[in-house]
């Protein structure tokens, strides 16, 4: 199934309260589909999060276009949008606020099943349990509220919510940044494994270079709203072209004790 998100010369401008305009994203071209795992790195304020929001149709460009299979997300009809969401799912950044604190985790997971797959409750629960087991999560945990499970478990539920509709592209926004290192590795492995086994595409957005490099095949480096470098991971890391990418790589070399 084709599932292509195409960014064409996208610009997103925010207006401050004083009236000053600030371009969070400026002239970005991107192609996302199910064939590749794409990593987007950049420091905070580089525009990565805005790109993610536009990629999911949660925000729309000021200029340029974001199209899904040729249809602009901004002007999609409700059924088309549902079909899009069926294909493209999000693993959100902040595990502590990505679930409604008043509802159980199962409630949150049933939502995509009802809305996007149009399953009844029994079928939805069966699908949820299958997904949870695949992620080594105890289905009994789903009866809990989000604050009653650990951060690592919550992040797995966040992944389960995305995977339960079996999307062709998974978008991860700082999906492991808030996790302890002992959990990070297993979550990263899990995501990578899923993409490999299900031929799903991945967009992994993070400020952490090593994790992004590990999980991605292609790397896009963003700096001040623009894409400054892109290419296969190995090429970007070891034959760096842009000076900003070089400082980024160096920063990790030093803290890892490898002389640069």
């Amino acid at each position: 199934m084709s599932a292509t998100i195409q960014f064409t010369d996208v610009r997103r401008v925010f207006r401050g309260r004083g009236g000053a305009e600030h371009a969070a994203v400026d002239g970005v071209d991107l192609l996302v589909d199910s064939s590749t795992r794409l990593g987007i790195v950049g420091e905070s304020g580089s525009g990565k999060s805005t790109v993610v929001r536009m990629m999911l149709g949660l925000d729309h460009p000021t200029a340029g276009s974001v199209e899904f299979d040729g249809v602009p997300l901004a002007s999609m009809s409700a059924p088309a949008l549902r079909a899009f969401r069926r294909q493209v799912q999000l693993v959100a950044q902040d595990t502590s606020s990505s679930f409604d604190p008043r509802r159980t985790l199962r409630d949150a997971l049933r939502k995509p099943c009802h809305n996007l797959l149009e399953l009844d409750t029994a079928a939805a629960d069966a699908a949820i349990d299958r997904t949870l087991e695949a992620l080594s999560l105890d289905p009994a945990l789903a009866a809990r509220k989000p604050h009653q499970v650990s951060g690592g478990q919550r992040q797995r539920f966040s992944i389960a919510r995305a995977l339960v509709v079996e999307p062709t592209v998974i978008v991860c926004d700082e999906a492991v940044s808030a996790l302890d290192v002992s959990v990070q590795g297993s979550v990263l492995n899990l995501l990578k494994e899923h993409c490999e086994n299900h031929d799903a595409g991945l967009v992994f957005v993070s400020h952490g270079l090593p994790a992004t490099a590990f999980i991605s095949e292609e790397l896009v480096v963003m700096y001040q709203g623009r894409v400054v470098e892109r290419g296969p991971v190995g090429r970007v890391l070891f034959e760096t072209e842009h000076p900003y990418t070089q400082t980024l790589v160096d920063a990790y070399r030093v803290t890892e004790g490898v002389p640069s």
Partner: protein
Amino acid sequence: MTHLWTRNGWWVRRLAVLPLHLLIFALVVFFLVKLIPGDPVAVLSGGQPMTPEQYEATRASLGLADPIWVQLTTFLGDAVRLDFGNSIISGIGVMDEMSTRLPETVELAVMAMTISALLALALGFLVVLRPRNAVSRVIASYARAAGAVPDFCLGVAGVFVFYSVLHWAPAPIGRYATSLNAPPRTTGFPFLDALLSSDTVLMSSMIQHLWLPIGVLVVAYAPMLLKLFIRSLDQAKNAQATRFRIASGASRPMVLLSVGRRALPSTIAMFGTIFGFMVGGAVVVEQLFAIPGMGEYAVQAVTRADFVALRGFLLVVGAVSLIVFFLVDVVTMSLDPRRRPGVATAGG
């Protein structure tokens, strides 16, 4: 020049919207009072039968015969010149009444609020710094019960205990003994005038008459301030910024000052609300102690369906409240610049 603007623009801009707010308020008052059912002409005649000619003449004299927009522009034009018309009952100019009544009420409110604010400030710090102290606990639980005992209950109880039983207070009539003459009018604020004319007899009579009503207002309203201040202080005290202040090696007074400055703005906003309350709302206490002020006037206007007086009264109270709100905004915005318009505080 631009430097001057970036430094002062925030309060100038706030000042600039004040007339706009007043205008909106005046419009609302005009139409609101217009909507009140009942015929002012009938009120004026006291139910006496009138010929149609008499009726029309009275209507015209009240300006009610004109088209509505003429009435509105006349009303607004007069209001700008501080002419609010004459009471349709007494015929006395609303502004004349206001100019004697407003200072009296404002004076009462200022005295009560000053004491309340000082009490809240001192007791707030006491409760927060010495939470285990027995006195602190009593104060904290009183503050928590804020608003449970309304001012008029306290007033009635106060009159009974201090006048009727203990005889510590004089009869609750007026702001000084009836045998005394009013102070020479210089500022319009009676106590201030008495002070300026060095009339010690009058002043002591005023103190005797006013301590109880002021006390009632303080006991009724100070807990509201105190409750909020304690909560804000608690928050400010536990904030990371306080820890860093301490850890970085600032002096103890500086740490307390820092906590206080972060806690004050919300309390000052509450202060403004309560002050506005008192200007219109000392109604109850004024009624109880027979102090001729704004409250008494409002009650008369409403019970007698005097639309001119009511309109004037609302406009004056609204204006005073809006000015107080402006001052409160300026003070809170200078204490906490994040509250200034156009200041973005999001991290990043």
